[in-house]
């Protein structure tokens, strides 16, 4: 691996330069206190290292809501001709935190398994990722350390660490892939050989513990979320849940979707699109005839928690909560997956002691 050192004064124009060649997405503060991943332009000054997690995670750029799965044309003989648009442009996702990087890695796994999802994989192939190392927790919702994603680096093309104790704001850039190698050409930087040492020094400044911590080891959660005692916790949270599905929509590892067919007014052409869906919505597990397999809000809450900590881990051998804190940050009634998990752990523990 190659590593370089560059100053922030050079990195910002480098991003602007890259943005002239292709779309570069970076967290941008919107009206209010929220951030969004938005395409940057030359005039924009960048909020390095101090930005808060964006409302939507960057992985949604690879799995956009309303994506066209195919278009069709019906000819005069009544024959259908299908077409998948392949003009997906290349993009750079910059300022991706380790938690969001892990989510992208998880989605890479999901969409490559079995019958491959060409739509996701096509976008992924044309995407370069410049990830940023976290040295302080983003806010008091974040729990990435306990969710084991704080030091996640797989999938980044360049991994940026802000160096400690430097007045002139220098950064370490680890170049992990060929894509990263191509990008770094245009940055004024100096090669660095003791990058491991510098990174460890920077990471040593992190507070301990780093953000909120689960009361039980992550590895135990797959069993704990199944205990009978947990059901009363799901019930308790479900009482204040509006079943709006916001937690699903902002979650970087939620990928359930619905599909829609649309036709144009000519009656001869149209498209099929896919849209983010939410298992917290009441009708998600309904079947023809009206039977609903998860009619109760508590059953849906339980499904969400088990999916993150047990069902998907059984299939992909990784926990599907990255500790980004988005669901808790955005929930209207302040339901936080972190609190649910800890309450479940406590309720199961208190039963053990009885």
């Amino acid at each position, binding site marked *: 691996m190659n590593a370089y050192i560059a100053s922030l004064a050079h990195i910002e124009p480098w991003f602007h330069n890259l943005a002239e060649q292709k779309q570069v997405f970076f967290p941008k503060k919107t009206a209010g206190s929220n951030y969004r991943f938005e395409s940057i332009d030359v005039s924009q000054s960048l909020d390095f290292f101090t930005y808060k997690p964006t409302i939507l995670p960057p992985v949604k750029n690879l799995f956009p809501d309303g994506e066209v799965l195919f278009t069709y044309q019906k000819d005069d003989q009544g024959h259908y001709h299908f077409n998948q648009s392949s003009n997906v442009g290349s993009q750079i996702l910059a300022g991706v935190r380790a938690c969001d990087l892990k989510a992208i890695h998880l989605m890479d796994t999901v969409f490559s398994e079995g019958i491959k999802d060409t739509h996701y994989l096509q976008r992924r192939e044309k995407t370069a990722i410049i990830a940023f190392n976290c040295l302080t927790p983003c806010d008091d919702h974040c729990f990435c350390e306990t969710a084991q994603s704080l030091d996640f680096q797989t999938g980044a093309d360049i991994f940026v660490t802000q160096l400690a104790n430097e007045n002139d704001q220098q950064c370490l850039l680890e170049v992990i892939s060929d894509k990263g190698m191509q990008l770094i050409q245009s940055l004024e930087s100096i090669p660095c050989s003791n990058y491991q040492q510098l990174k460890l020094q920077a990471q040593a400044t992190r507070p301990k513990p780093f953000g909120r911590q689960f009361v039980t080891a992550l590895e135990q959660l797959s069993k704990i979320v199944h205990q009978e005692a947990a059901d009363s916790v799901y019930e308790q949270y479900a009482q204040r849940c509006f079943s709006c599905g916001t937690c699903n929509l902002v979650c970087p590892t939620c990928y359930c979707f619905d599909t829609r067919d649309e036709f144009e007014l000519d009656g001869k052409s149209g498209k099929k699109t896919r849209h983010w869906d939410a298992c917290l919505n009441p009708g998600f597990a309904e079947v*023809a005839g009206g039977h609903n397999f998860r009619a109760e809000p508590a059953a849906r809450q339980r499904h969400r928690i088990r999916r993150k900590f047990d069902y998907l881990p059984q299939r992909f051998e990784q926990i599907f909560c990255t500790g980004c804190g988005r669901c808790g940050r955005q929930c209207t009634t302040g339901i936080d997956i972190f609190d649910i998990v800890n309450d479940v752990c406590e309720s199961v523990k208190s039963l053990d002691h009885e």
Partner: protein
Amino acid sequence: MNNNSYIPVMAEIQSVEALTAREKLFRVLLPEPLNHRPGQFVMVSLPGIGECAISISSGPESGRMLEMVIRKAGNVTGVFHELKVSDSIGIRGPFGSGFDLDEFRHKDIVVIAGGLGLVPLRSLIIPIMEHKADYGRVHLIIGSRTPAEALFREQIKTWKKLPDCFITELVDDTEFLDWDGETGLVTEPINQLSLDIENTLLVLCGPPVMYKFVLMELRMNFSIPDEQIFVDLERRMRCGMGKCGHCQINHVYCCKDGPVFRYSQLRDLPEALT
């Protein structure tokens, strides 16, 4: 891009037969043989209109001809019901696990079907009846709500003539219509079965409410292991490939791991049967 798994193959409708007021049997001709296993399903669509998961009702030796029974249950199936001979319809699949016929050979087989449950199980019954000598005793218990909703009665008559084939047809209520079968629920004939437990496989498919009572009745009368009981489930699906999440039952996916499951796989899963 030809590997887009959402693009259907267009098939031509050969015949449409109204079986009941709500159900139509569609026979469609595919460009290539489907090569499905009994119990598998297809995603059926009209571009621009919509797509639904529909059971395959024809046997595995049906080649390019695919038979499906579609109930008019909503907007999309309502449009399917308007289709006529020589119209085209989109097909993706086959999807799902299905039944392994090798496991059924030389076994006694009990099939309990309620309502539309007969439709997917027909794909299993047909190959068994066509090669009846390769299988043991076959019991079919087929329930419908009323005589007007009973499906495939002519075909069932031909099955009745086969050796070692015992068929009970029931309706919940005759509603003053002609009916030459029994009246009652599919649970009722269960205690009259005489089964060689070790050599018997059971197959169930019906509305969600049926499973609990059928399984309870089976429990009360026989000590048949859960591994020998198959259930064929129904869920709403969007992709058929284990991604969209709609058919997820705990850690299993109806579209990939099912829709045919051994009861032993589902026994401990809440939300599987009710």
